[in-house]
């Protein structure tokens, strides 16, 4: 129920001191702060978006916070996942997040779910909470969160980020509100939208979008202001511009009446990131590639389809850099045909997904090749750890 019922909710002297700057705001006051204390928010994902979201929900005085994440902290997270620290690398993100939340607000009840949200557990996990904040990074989970919120009647505070662009809105605020399926009725083809791991993201961006999500959650709980329900907020960090699109519920949209197999719905085989397309392409392992490169290489050519900034981080010796977009737009095809004439063509990228796409594109031009499974990431892990992972 929103705003939450504040019957029996009292603020201790410590809480009054802690939230003084809220209490003196006419729009919040004692009743608004009690609503925050009485509220419960489930945050799915404790990464780039989840980090600022959780920090500010805890700081605002949300009484109960649930966190869903199965991942551990990695060095590459620390550029943007500001709730975690170096001392937590290798440890569960939910534990790291809980420790930081309680440091900010020891009055907060923190529930941990060290699991992937699935059709089997989503309704049980979401049910006890007033609001869900979506901080996930993949389409199957976004559709799952959306559908679970629709079935349970929970607002879904949505955020997404990529490179320098972000989006935020509130789905399913009430029965007449649009939901995620009104924006994206179908998922994109697998691999079409790179993850942050492949496409990159400027570290500050999830900080901005995550705080916008926290702001919307606070407004919904306290019942103040105008939410983003019915509007999609677009943020362009490079131009420092905000724009809005109207969102309308589609009266012809199929009714959501149960949870489904979202991996199947999104056409994802449940494989590791970057691997969705690789299944259709012949491949070799990095150890096999190492053996080939250690012998007579006159009969082979290895291309690297990553972007130039990635190649500055590290390379597989002997690879020729030809970015994927030059292959997909055709400008590099003749050059590759010439390089590969009379030779066996191998292609790699960071994780194996983009090189598979490159080979599929080259096949349309009559050029066959073999994918390096796992890409330079696997090369670094299994062959040469002097090549930096990123």
């Amino acid at each position, binding site marked *: 129920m929103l705003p939450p019922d504040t019957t029996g909710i009292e603020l201790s002297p410590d809480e009054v001191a802690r939230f003084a700057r809220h209490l003196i705001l006419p729009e919040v006051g004692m009743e608004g702060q009690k609503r925050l204390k009485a509220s419960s928010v489930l945050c799915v994902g404790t990464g780039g978006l989840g980090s600022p979201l959780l920090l500010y929900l805890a700081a605002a005085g949300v009484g109960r916070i649930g966190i869903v994440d199965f991942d551990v902290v990695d060095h590459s997270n620390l550029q943007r996942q500001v709730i975690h620290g170096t001392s937590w690398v290798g440890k569960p993100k939910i534990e790291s997040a809980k420790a930081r939340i309680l440091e900010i607000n020891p009055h907060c009840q923190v529930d941990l779910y060290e699991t992937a949200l699935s059709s089997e557990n989503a309704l049980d996990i979401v049910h006890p909470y007033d609001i869900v904040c979506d901080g996930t990074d993949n389409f199957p989970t976004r559709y799952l969160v959306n559908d679970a919120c629709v079935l349970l009647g929970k607002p879904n505070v949505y955020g997404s980020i990529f490179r320098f*662009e972000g989006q935020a809105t509130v789905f399913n605020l009430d029965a007449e509100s649009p939901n995620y399926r009104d*924006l*994206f009725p179908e998922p994109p083809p697998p691999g079409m939208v790179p993850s942050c791991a492949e496409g990159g993201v400027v570290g500050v961006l999830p900080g901005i979008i995550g705080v916008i999500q926290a702001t919307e959650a606070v407004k919904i709980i306290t019942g103040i202001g105008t939410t983003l329900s019915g*509007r*999609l907020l*677009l943020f*362009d960090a*490079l*131009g420092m511009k905000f*724009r*809005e*699109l*109207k*969102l*309308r519920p*589609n*009266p*012809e*949209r199929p009714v959501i009446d149960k949870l489904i197999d979202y991996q199947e719905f999104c056409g994802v085989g449940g494989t590791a990131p970057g691997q969705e397309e690789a299944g259709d392409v012949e491949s070799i392992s990095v150890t096999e590639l190492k053996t080939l490169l250690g012998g007579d290489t006159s009969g082979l050519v290895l291309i690297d389809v990553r972007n130039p900034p990635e190649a500055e981080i590290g390379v597989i010796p002997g690879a020729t850099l030809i970015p994927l977009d030059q292959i997909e737009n055709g400008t590099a095809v003749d050059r590759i045909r010439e390089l590969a004439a009379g030779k066996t063509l191998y292609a790699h990228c960071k994780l194996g997904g983009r090189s598979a796409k490159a080979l599929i594109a080259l096949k349309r031009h009559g050029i066959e090749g073999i994918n390096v499974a796992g890409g330079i990431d696997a090369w670094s892990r299994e062959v040469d750890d002097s090549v930096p992972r990123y």
Partner: protein
Amino acid sequence: MLLDGHCLIILERTLRANHPEENCALLIGRHQGTALHLQQIWPCCNCWEPAEERLRRFCLDPREQLLAEKWCRARQLQVLGAAHSHPGSAATPSATDRALCVGPTLMVIRTGLEKGVAALRCWWMPADACSLDQPRELRLKLLPQTG
């Protein structure tokens, strides 16, 4: 609002393409001083549901708008606004048009009751649909053809 002859032809044809349904498009260009220079037309499908109401209602697919925004950013252009047709009414923003647009923005309307350039009217829509500010009509100026 400034535009050249080619742009005008594409805009007119787009806004007549699926008559008698309302047609729509995104308008792409740049702010040029106090004027808006319309440089590209991005035709869109009218995805208003239920479909039988498309004779008097239109809706742009948000995915189309996201794509256009991205395309524009890559070319230092802007989505200036949107155009749509009023097959059987005047080229003035209706109450629904005001309620559903996100201002401030450019709105171009083509009426089916006139022909040629006279059928088109351009409006600058205020920021807040509920405010007392009224849409402001902009003069449409044809630029000489270049190249």
